[in-house]
């Protein structure tokens, strides 16, 4: 359980393709430890993969070296919130393409609520909150 909303887990890593797999695996472990069912775990894995892929693909596209990708996990009664944060130019898809643009709608569909906040100092924070109550999830 997170104390006073402080993350129970925080991961920092370079925004390289490997980061998506690391985040996905880490969240799978967290869901397992929290006793989430297969359906809820699948939703978390998919949404986190989408958010991290957006960071890897778009957040640092103006730089030669990738910046940081941060994934935080906050656990509260009945809820699990995963925050994916970058310090780059944000996760807006490139105008010239590079995806179908389904990532953010998919995240919205998989979560209880999802918030995207452009940070004052640069970068974007995607906060995804999932239901962890089995009865509500219907796992």
């Amino acid at each position, binding site marked *: 359980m997170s104390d006073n909303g*402080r993350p129970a*887990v*925080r*991961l920092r890593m370079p925004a390289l393709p*490997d980061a998506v797999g*690391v985040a996905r695996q*880490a969240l799978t*472990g*967290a869901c397992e430890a929290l006793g989430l069912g297969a359906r809820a775990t699948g939703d978390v894995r998919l949404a986190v993969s989408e958010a991290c892929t957006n960071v890897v693909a778009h957040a640092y596209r103006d730089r030669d070296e990738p910046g940081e990708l941060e994934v935080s996990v906050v656990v509260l009664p009945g809820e699990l919130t995963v925050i994916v944060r970058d310090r780059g130019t944000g996760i807006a898809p490139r105008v010239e393409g590079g995806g179908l643009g389904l990532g953010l709608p998919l995240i919205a569909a998989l979560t209880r609520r999802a918030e995207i906040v452009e940070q004052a100092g640069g970068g974007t924070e995607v906060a995804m909150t999932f239901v962890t109550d089995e009865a509500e999830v219907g796992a």
Partner: protein
Amino acid sequence: MTAFRVEAELADETLAGAVLGRVVGILGARVALPIDKLSDALLVSDAVSAATRGAHVIRIEAGVEPKRLELRVGPLEPGGAERLIGSIEAPLGAGSLTRLVDEIATAGDDGAEYLILGLAPS
């Protein structure tokens, strides 16, 4: 192969073992640790999680250098690395850590200590 470093702050003991084990597992696979070494790495990961239980925040870096997996545990108080080795070995037996990893080292930085555990594929 380029280095890939993950810094994990694991403040919740319920999640720490499961999350660290998964991160160590995927990074171990990335450096092609054979199955016996991967098993050792996961054993060490579980022991590190258990030994650091009760700490509010522990930073653990799983860094992949070419063909090497490294766990850097800290920051610890002076003398903390030696105490942590003792705690890790307690459930496994004295000297067990030296049989599971290829490198045990300590490093100091700004008055803090770090325990470094390295594993290589061969």
